[in-house]
């Protein structure tokens, strides 16, 4: 028993030593709690699996610097056990607030209870947990994928206002079963079902990738006699589809109107060339919002349980202006 305790203690100290060694590069914030009012935040990121995620990380780091908050950053490399380890070490270091983007939805109760016992508030970003005990985290800041689908539908309804001809829509879904794919599909479907002229004639998964988006779109172009609108669940699939449409001798954005979600730089470039009609933003730049929230949580202010990131809808006339400022 004592052997195990000793081993655990040794492991814990090593971890703290390693983490504080990493953190010391930021400028000796070891005992920020005692001296001054500088907040220390432990942030555990999912990983660096996409450009969107990298932009998300950078936004959080920059915002922390700007807000004068000491950020202890840990990359979980898409593994839950790494994230749990990181949160435990944050607790031992007595950070003021813990923020993290959960890799998966379940299995967080134990470690979140430890944080609660240590009186450290937890803020979730980008992704949610399915814990039944709502007292385990203070708030959840992130995108609402259903809302994104609805925005895409709203634009379409407005675009075809006053016209009575049938509108044939093809849909490129994200990875089958993923939350963004399910929610963007249902949000969009909810809005367009109010008008019978809108018809989704084909809907297939493009796995969120350019290659698949192009391949599926090529098949659609041949099997569907008339396509008026393409709704893609992310920009990469839309960009692949743009190529397929061009190779079929049609003009993307004119002959086939294109709605896409995310708003990465390449998509903005395509939109400034008129090849995409509208981009529903899924904003990874939630750093500033997160830092505000952390300050409020620490000050004991009441915050809403669910906060949606500020996200816009970009149309072609805004694309050229927005392009130079896109960070991802």
């Amino acid at each position, binding site marked *: 028993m004592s052997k195990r305790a000793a081993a655990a203690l040794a492991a814990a100290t090593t971890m703290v030593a390693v983490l504080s060694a990493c953190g010391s590069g930021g400028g000796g914030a070891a005992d920020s709690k005692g001296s001054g009012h500088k907040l220390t935040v432990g942030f555990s990121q999912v990983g660096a699996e996409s450009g969107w995620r990298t932009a998300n990380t950078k936004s959080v780091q920059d915002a922390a610097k700007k807000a004068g908050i000491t950020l202890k950053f840990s990359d979980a490399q898409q593994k839950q056990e790494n994230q749990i380890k990181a949160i435990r070490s944050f607790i031992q270091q007595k950070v003021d607030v813990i923020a993290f983007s959960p890799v998966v939805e379940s299995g967080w109760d134990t470690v979140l209870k430890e944080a609660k016992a240590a009186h450290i508030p937890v803020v979730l970003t980008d992704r949610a947990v399915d814990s039944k005990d709502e007292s385990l985290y203070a708030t959840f800041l992130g995108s609402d994928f259903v809302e994104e689908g609805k925005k895409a539908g709203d634009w379409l309804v407005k675009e075809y206002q006053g016209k009575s001809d049938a509108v044939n829509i093809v849909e490129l879904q994200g990875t089958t079963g993923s939350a963004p794919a399910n929610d963007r599909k249902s949000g969009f479907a909810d809005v367009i079902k109010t008008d019978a002229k809108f018809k989704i004639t084909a809907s297939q998964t493009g796995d969120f*990738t350019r290659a698949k988006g192009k391949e599926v779109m090529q098949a659609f172009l041949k*099997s569907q006699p008339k396509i008026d609108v393409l709704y893609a669940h992310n920009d990469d699939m839309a960009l692949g589809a743009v190529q397929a449409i061009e190779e079929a001798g049609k003009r993307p954005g004119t002959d086939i109107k294109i709605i896409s979600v995310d708003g990465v730089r390449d998509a903005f470039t395509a939109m400034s060339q008129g090849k995409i009609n509208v981009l529903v933003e899924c904003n990874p730049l939630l750093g500033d919002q997160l830092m505000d929230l952390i300050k409020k949580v620490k000050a004991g202010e009441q915050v809403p349980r669910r906060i949606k990131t500020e996200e816009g809808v970009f149309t072609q006339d805004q694309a050229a202006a927005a392009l130079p400022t896109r960070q991802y």
Partner: protein
Amino acid sequence: MTKHRLFWPAVVLAALLLANVVFTPDFFAIRIKDGHLYGSLIDILHFGAPLILVALGMTLVIATSGIDLSVGSTVAIAGALACLHISGAADPASPATVLGAVALALGVALVLGAVNGVLVARVGVQPIIATLILMVAGRGVAQLVTDGQIVTVTSEPYKLIGGGYWLTMPFAILFAAAVVLLTSLLTRRTALGLLLESVGGNPVASRLAGIRATGLIGLVYLFSALCAGVAGLMISSNVSSADGNNAGLWIELDAILAVVLGGTSLTGGRFSLGGTVIGALIIQTLSTTVYTIGIPPETTLVFKAFVVIAVCLIQSPAFRAKAARRRARPGRGTASRPLTPENTEVGA
């Protein structure tokens, strides 16, 4: 005619294509659009070209009773290196830049193949383990190369490899056809094919007969990696971007499936290049069929699984014999290996 080993795979391919006509009447129509051929059949060949190449390399590896799981990672690494080289160059559109990128990507692919070859042939690691190492690590390397981002390139000469046209045909189709032709000439007009089969069939006997198994096995892994490298260039060129995370994901499994559908036995000792090409086309046609007839994405995999099971059963002489309630039961050897075609004209 039904005795020919390619008969049943060809029947399945034809049946799949005909099934599409029911839903899309002008499925077989091929038109000239913007100076190049345009139609569903062209699409199938075009998107099937990388898979044909990867499966071609896989066929030879499997003929030596090996397996190469690392091809998907090689696809990703080759595409990533080429796109990174082009996007970093001063003039992305110059042929010299593109040639440099191609040489770099294929050079690295050859090195990866050499690593596999040495591990399997010299060190004696089991092929599935040896190539698993690169399969797992390689995708990480590809993401490291691209820094986790999707690298987009605008370069007309590079676009030609996977997305361009030459003599009204997609260049990728012509290139894949040329590689298939060359490989079949090399393996079937020389003794090379026979030697590969003998190494796969019985390594000890081959060695005692004076065949240099080590060199041959190393060679097939080199060839497999080279094919995967070219496929990686095609895939990234077709969409003008490199995606380290997704390019060539699971293509090793599709390639193995193509080889099996084509009637090559996984136990090694024989192979059919023509069968592999048909197998790869069956897989690609299956995908197109799913999009054309609108099978919901949730059930796509089940649909594909049923087709694959059906193809395997139809190809099995034992199954056909049972189904037809023929008098003669097939021999033990074929009954226990239902994927192996009946005829035994090895190296024909």
